[in-house]
């Protein structure tokens, strides 16, 4: 395919000089990308602390947590978490992690920073939209966090916010007042930010590629961000509509999701005609694609980084891109697998089950391609590479439990148990986090011009890798034993024997969480005091390593947009610089040491 020529060599906008324009309300995609990553860092620390509190409460329900009593005198009087506060912690943990970490970091964060550079553009197509997209996301986060400080506490109806619990208001108990309204508002605002971001990503990828950057030469990470934005554009529009309807039910007296005849807190509710299942359909029509919005950038990052450290090209690059596209497309046909037992027509369970199983095929192929890429490699197991291998391992672990949950008959037993918690934490949370870690260690030298410490990085990897298996694998066992999720305490006779396993998980979670302090320390130390990074520390080929400096100048390429002559992963070749050829190098197509 012929790529559009980079006809605009001059700056499209001049570099700003003032503090606010440069660092706060910046139009520069690199600053915005870093802002997204910083926001995600704040969010992930918050989300992880919440998960610690939940885990401690599950293992030792009566143990007082001193600082919590000060932070939330209602939710944790004397430091002991109440059942409703537990549910609030859970709801906020999930909402913060899914939206502000797993969507913000790998997609909006790295995507913003590197997508324009990787296609050889000077900035995003719509820099003002881009700035708005970050700041709306930031407002959404602040609105969500503010619900911790309202009188009856934050929302507690889960990140899925099933109606009518989430729709009827205060009568339904604590957390259903202002907290739930703020939750709906926050997510609606977040959707607007994502829509602006997605539009930007799509337009930039299609319109701003530099000379020679044909689709076939586009890096896999760019492909992943592009496909993710297409998925996100549809998914977040539906969620935005759903959130508006939910807010109307809450504040304007409508009944989209509330049927008639409900008696809550001894009061007949003044609603009629709505459908709780409508909310579930709308939510999961977004919610399932959202899983892929979280993980596809991870696919891209791993496919981008793995060849660098394997020193050979990706196995089956076109197959991999096709897999990502098929996954993106199919992600809209399988939302009903969250609803097998929801009371929808049981026949539709079978209809949703088949595409759910079919989507495992492209996921399996992608996994096999990565494992096949490691075959015959000259592996350099530096930290980014370790996290790539870890990603493959945890993605396999999480993906395989999907086979169980995709079958309605088995789901009859495993639905709403810890088996599901194990499944989605491995396949989207931990896998996506490993993608984020791989990306951070890999791109840090480019973003900050300094190197992260390799020894600390390796310690971080080993403790995290073993840690996540200790935390999340036993949750499969809990689920097999019928342990219901979203319980603030285990008072049922059949659940009491499982408490020792819960204690093991809690201890593992605290250790694994503590191991993240190594990462945090490494990150902060390297950002300010790390040794200067060489121009191309990993001997990689893509355009981000052809910028004149690290971090790249305001217009990325110093006013000289590069031309591209090669594919994104020309490793294992005899090039002038070594066993690789940069995309922007005009040397002729090389002799390949081994075929693809």
């Amino acid at each position, binding site marked *: 395919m012929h790529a559009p020529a980079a006809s605009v060599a001059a700056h499209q906008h001049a570099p700003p000089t003032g503090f606010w324009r440069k660092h706060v309300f910046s139009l520069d995609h690199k600053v915005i990308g870093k802002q997204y990553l910083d926001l995600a860092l704040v969010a992930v620390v918050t989300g992880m602390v919440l998960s610690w509190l939940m885990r401690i409460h599950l293992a030792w329900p009566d143990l007082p947590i001193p600082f919590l009593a000060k932070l939330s005198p209602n939710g944790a009087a004397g430091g002991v978490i109440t059942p409703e506060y537990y549910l609030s912690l859970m709801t906020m943990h999930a909402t913060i992690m899914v939206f502000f970490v797993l969507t913000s970091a790998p997609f909006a964060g790295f995507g913003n920073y590197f997508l324009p550079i990787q296609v050889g553009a000077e900035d995003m197509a719509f820099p003002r939209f881009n700035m708005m997209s970050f700041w709306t996301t930031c407002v959404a986060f602040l609105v969500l966090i503010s619900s911790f400080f309202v009188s009856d506490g934050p929302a507690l109806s889960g990140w899925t916010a099933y109606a009518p619990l989430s729709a009827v208001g205060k009568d*339904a108990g604590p957390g259903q007042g202002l907290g739930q309204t703020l939750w709906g508002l926050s997510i609606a605002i977040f959707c607007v930010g994502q829509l602006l971001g997605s539009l930007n990503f799509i337009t930039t990828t299609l319109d701003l590629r530099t000379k020679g950057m044909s689709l076939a030469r586009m890096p896999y990470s760019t492909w992943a961000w592009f496909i993710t934005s297409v998925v996100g554009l549809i998914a977040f529009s539906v969620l935005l509509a759903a959130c508006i309807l939910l807010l109307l039910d809450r504040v304007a007296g409508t009944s989209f999701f509330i049927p008639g005849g409900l008696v809550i807190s001894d009061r007949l509710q003044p609603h009629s005609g709505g459908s709780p299942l409508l909310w579930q359909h709308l939510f999961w029509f977004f919610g399932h694609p959202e899983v892929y919005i979280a993980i596809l950038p991870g696919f891209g990052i791993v496919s981008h980084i793995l060849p660098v450290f394997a020193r050979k090209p990706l196995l089956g690059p076109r197959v991999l891109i096709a897999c990502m596209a098929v996954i993106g497309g199919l992600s809209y046909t399988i939302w009903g697998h969250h609803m097998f037992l929801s009371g929808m027509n049981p026949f539709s369970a079978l209809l949703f089950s088949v595409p759910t199983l079919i989507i495992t095929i492209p996921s399996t192929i992608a996994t096999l391609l990565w494992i096949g890429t*490691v*075959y015959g490699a000259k592996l350099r197991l530096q930290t980014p590479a370790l996290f790539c291998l870890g990603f493959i*391992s945890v993605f396999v672990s999480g993906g395989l439990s999907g*086979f169980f949950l995709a079958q309605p008959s088995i789901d009859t*037993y495993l639905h709403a148990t810890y088996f599901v918690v194990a499944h989605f934490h491995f396949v989207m949370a931990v896998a996506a986090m490993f993608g984020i870690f791989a990306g951070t260690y890999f791109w840090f030298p480019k973003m900050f011009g300094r190197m992260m410490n390799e020894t600390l990085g390796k310690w971080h990897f080993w403790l995290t890798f073993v840690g996540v*298996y200790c935390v999340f694998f036993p949750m499969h066992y809990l689920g097999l034993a019928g342990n219901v999720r979203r319980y603030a305490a285990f008072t049922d*006779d059949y659940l009491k024997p499982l408490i020792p396993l819960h204690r093991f998980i809690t201890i593992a979670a605290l250790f694994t969480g503590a191991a993240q302090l190594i990462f945090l320390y490494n990150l902060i130390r390297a950002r300010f005091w790390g040794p200067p990074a060489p121009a191309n520390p990993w001997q990689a080929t893509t355009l981000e390593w052809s910028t004149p400096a690290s971090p790249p100048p305001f217009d990325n390429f110093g006013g000289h947009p590069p031309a591209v002559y090669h594919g994104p992963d020309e490793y294992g070749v005899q090039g002038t610089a070594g066993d690789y050829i940069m995309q922007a190098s005009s040397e002729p197509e090389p002799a390949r040491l081994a075929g693809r």
Partner: protein
Amino acid sequence: MGKLFAVVLTVITLVATAIVAMHIWWPPPDISVHGPGIDRQLGETMIMAGILFVVSQLALALFAWQYSAADGRKIKTFPGGPTPLVVFAILLVGIETLALTFVGSKVWAGIFQTPPDPSSLQVDVQAEQFAFYFRYPGPDGTFGATHPELINEASENYLGLDPAHDPDARDDIVVPTLRIPVNRPIALTLHAKDVNHSFYVPELRLQQDFVPGLRIPLHFTATRTGRYEIVCTQLCGLGHYNMRAYLEVMPQDAFDQWLKQQAAQQ
């Protein structure tokens, strides 16, 4: 480093798999007619997923062992390129999973897509924050109509019955425990008073949501007497974790006697 990765991953894989294989944490013994179908499906999926888990993790471990720090060695392409992997995924994984789903569909259809036996014992179930109530039709065999506006916890009219005007409602039996005779088909009708709830009995291999505004049928036959917990699995508010009732599966004659006693009290 590659060798360390290989060893760690192999240990994780083997320990994780061994614990599953030893059934240390496993579903409780099944007490339903349809349960063995689900257990078989679960077992077959476990074997398939287990094999794929061990093979792919060990392949990753092996390659990481073999191909790390291989300076001086030439890179090699995967034999045959991506094609054999694509064929493997489509044929083996695709056919295996689709086969599983077609077999599993029968199990599913047997529970959720067949009408209950006409001779089933009818029980009406109401879920509310944070309790279950079970209603038997009484000697007339007919349930009285429910009126949400009449629901009153204080006067123990949990379902909103109107015995003053509705003769069908007068002999309805409303209790907080689900008592059923063993080996007899049971047909439940689930409805919710306030928000979503769910009916889950692990031993029965049965789970179904309550949805406000819907009356959802659910049927089963229990094959073993005993006392089991019915738990709520759909987040319903602060008392969710504590929302439970008991299922008592009784011999037929004991059940008949109990029902007679209850009817006499109405």
